[in-house]
């Protein structure tokens, strides 16, 4: 009661590793919502009591009024904690789109609530609309380029692929000398790795 559970929710979020999403705690979330509704009920009861006694709602300052204020403040505190929880998770989800691409791996997907999955899809679509309007893919070139060509080793069987300047047979464990922009999309999906040195 009185904001304790809500602050637990927020603490759980901040205790997680920075940048990592933990599973959506819908149990605790629902409990806080139930508390909010309970507070609201009490608040309304007290307000009604003041009115029934024939006193003016706006100016009365008796015990009931202060009780109502406490319920109101707890409610607002719960609301802020819940909003903080959802909003900060939403920020992490935004970053996911840049790091992991348009499709989320299943281990991350099971940590999101339904609304968060929908948010991710909408956000992804907004980003893609912007990029296609500009005709520029902004998810490549995340680090400054050192060489136009890089050496890569293929990790998974991809098969015959037509690239911008050559066609190559990307069999597992084969090594190739590819254009950086071609290789980048495979590397970000984990199908290839760059060979340094």
């Amino acid at each position: 009661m009185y904001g304790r559970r809500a602050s637990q929710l927020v603490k759980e979020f901040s205790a997680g590793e920075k940048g990592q999403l933990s599973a959506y705690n819908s149990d605790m979330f629902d409990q806080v919502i139930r508390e909010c509704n309970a507070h609201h009920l009490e608040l309304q009861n007290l307000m009604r009591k003041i009115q029934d006694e024939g006193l003016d709602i706006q100016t009365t300052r008796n015990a009931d009024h202060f009780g109502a204020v406490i319920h109101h403040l707890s409610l607002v505190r719960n609301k802020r904690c819940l909003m903080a929880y959802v909003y900060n998770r939403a920020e992490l989800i935004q970053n996911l789109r840049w790091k992991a691409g348009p499709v989320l791996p299943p281990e991350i997907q099971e940590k999101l609530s339904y609304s968060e999955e929908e948010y991710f899809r909408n956000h992804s679509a907004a980003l893609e609309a912007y990029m296609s309007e500009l005709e520029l893919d902004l998810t490549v070139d995340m680090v400054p380029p050192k060489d136009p060509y890089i050496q890569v080793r293929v990790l998974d069987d991809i098969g015959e692929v037509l690239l911008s300047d050559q066609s190559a047979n990307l069999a597992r464990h084969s090594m190739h000398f590819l254009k950086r922009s071609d290789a980048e999309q495979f590397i970000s999906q984990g199908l290839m790795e760059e060979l340094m040195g």
Partner: protein
Amino acid sequence: MASGSDGLGLGSEDYETLMATTDVELLKKAWRNEKASPEILRFQFNLIQRSREQIQLMEETVEELAESGADPLTVSLYQMDLDRVLFLLRSYLRIRLQKIEKYVIHISKTELWNRLSDQEQKFAKRCTDDLEKHLNQSVLSKLPYGYQSILKQSISSEEDDMGSLLNLHQARRLGHD
């Protein structure tokens, strides 16, 4: 930037003035400014327009050069230069987009909105809509009546006091970072 005279016969000052006005230098400057500034700066519409046209030209030149069988080293040097400029352009746009994502509600409500390009404004509008929908669905619709506003803590609030939570008070937030 090399100091002292060089083979071109230009004094170092002239060389630097010349370099400072090429579009690549301007793009580098815009990129540096955007990277270093915590708030979003004015969109350099003309510069970006010109840069894209020059990149297009460069791409065609490199292709022709490659097909005409010129020295592969030369081709790859031109390609390298092209890649680096493309990186600058993409990074510039990317940094702006990420700032918009982060501070979208604040930007939508202040004069910062005018610093966005048309496409960025469209993106920002979609961002706000998505975020509001998500917050409403997850939290606000489940709360009692009178506490369902995004920006106000409750209907008895006189101003938008959910501010610090939603990155509205940028200055305060920057102090915490």
